[in-house]
């Protein structure tokens, strides 16, 4: 282990880790929006929306995230979508994780006992009211933990934007591996930073989950 070298390069890794944090947060937010829309579409009364939701999930989950990013970033300009690398990274990864979150949210909503919404309807609530006031609060409780699994995968997935040259943690590690020929040191440095982010996120999710869990 070359600790002198590590001390020399770690400020660059910290900067890069901050970019990874920004990417992760923005991607999570976009993913949650896409997931909510996707789940709403898949559970909709309208057949067209259900088909659209199912197609979104199937196409995104059936192809590599890397290809989706390339298609958006390099192919986008041909169809009038001009995004810089960071924006393409957020949009590409957000839409990607949104498909997985769609299934997570749909699963949680379906898992709420049918009697709950039937009872609410009987008591005179509209379909929407029954969903918003009775089903959704119970479903939210069920989705926190599996959404945490999605977010964990997403944080590691942000590494992919290194391939469209966003200067985040993996890109930085790759560049320093190339220039210093010290792969283990650079891996350790980047790895520790990823582990800190993932462990911290895991703790937040667990705390949230404990708070809303029924006794």
């Amino acid at each position, binding site marked *: 282990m070359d600790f002198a070298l590590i001390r020399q390069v770690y400020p660059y890794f910290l900067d890069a880790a901050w970019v990874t944090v920004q990417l992760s947060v923005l991607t999570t937010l976009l993913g949650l929006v896409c997931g909510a829309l996707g789940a709403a579409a898949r559970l909709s009364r309208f057949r067209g929306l259900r088909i659209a939701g199912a197609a979104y999930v199937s*196409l995104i989950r*059936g*192809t*590599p*995230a*890397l*290809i*989706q990013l*390339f*298609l958006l970033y*390099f*192919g*986008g*300009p*041909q*169809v009038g979508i001009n995004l810089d690398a960071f924006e393409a990274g957020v949009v590409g990864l957000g839409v990607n994780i949104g498909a997985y979150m769609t299934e997570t949210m749909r699963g949680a909503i379906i898992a709420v006992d049918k009697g709950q919404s039937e009872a609410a309807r009987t008591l005179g609530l509209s379909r929407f009211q029954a969903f918003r006031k009775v089903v959704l609060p119970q479903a939210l409780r069920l989705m926190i933990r599996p959404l945490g699994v999605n977010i964990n995968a997403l944080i*590691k*997935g*942000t*590494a*992919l934007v*290194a*391939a469209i040259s966003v200067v985040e*943690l*993996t890109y930085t*590690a*790759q560049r320093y*591996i*190339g220039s210093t*020929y*010290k*792969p*283990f040191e650079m*891996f350790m440095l*980047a*790895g520790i930073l*990823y*582990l800190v982010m*993932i*462990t911290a996120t895991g703790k937040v999710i667990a705390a949230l989950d404990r708070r809303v869990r029924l006794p």
Partner: protein
Amino acid sequence: MGLDFSVVPSFMNFLLLGTVWTIAITAAAALLSFFGGVLFAVIALYAPMVVRLPFRLFEWLFMGTPLLLQLFLIYFGLVELGIDLPAFVAGVIGLGLHFAVYNSELIQTAILAVDKGQMEAARTLGLSRTQALVRVVIPQAVRDVIPPIGNNMIALLKDSALVSVIGVSEITLSAQLAIGRTYRAFEFYAAAAALYYVINLGMEAVLRRVERRMQLSR
């Protein structure tokens, strides 16, 4: 520059060759991840403390860092250690180890879920602990865990696109090379996505068949 898919067919053979490599690397890495997963599960559950603790550390590192970073480590790290592997082999090792760790988690749970009586009965019949594990307990655990491992293998197929960055000429890199010649990024990445999608559908169909058969054999 609008869209013009007419350039894609002339590169079709090239992309199909890439598809063969994608299937080859996925199959090789899937095999490694399966047997590696069984081995890791046995280590995690039965190895002595001196082996188990470093192994736990390795597992934690591999589950908490991106696959892309691990591929860089393996590809460049092995060269550092004087082992110059072809990119394909480095890719198989990287993908295989990464998914072996995930498979190991599944297999550990399944081994623990096999009824204790199975091990006891096997021991009573005169099998050694290792024999009982290999011939009685693990086969039952593996049967239970095939559907979730199948899902991991579908994830592996998609993650195999990452080995393009270390220079394995599978679908993704083939598409990139074609784009280098034609500047038609959208068309070739869309074609690549379609190829992955078809392989993915094939794998899902096989998996569903296997699942159905396992349910029948119960």
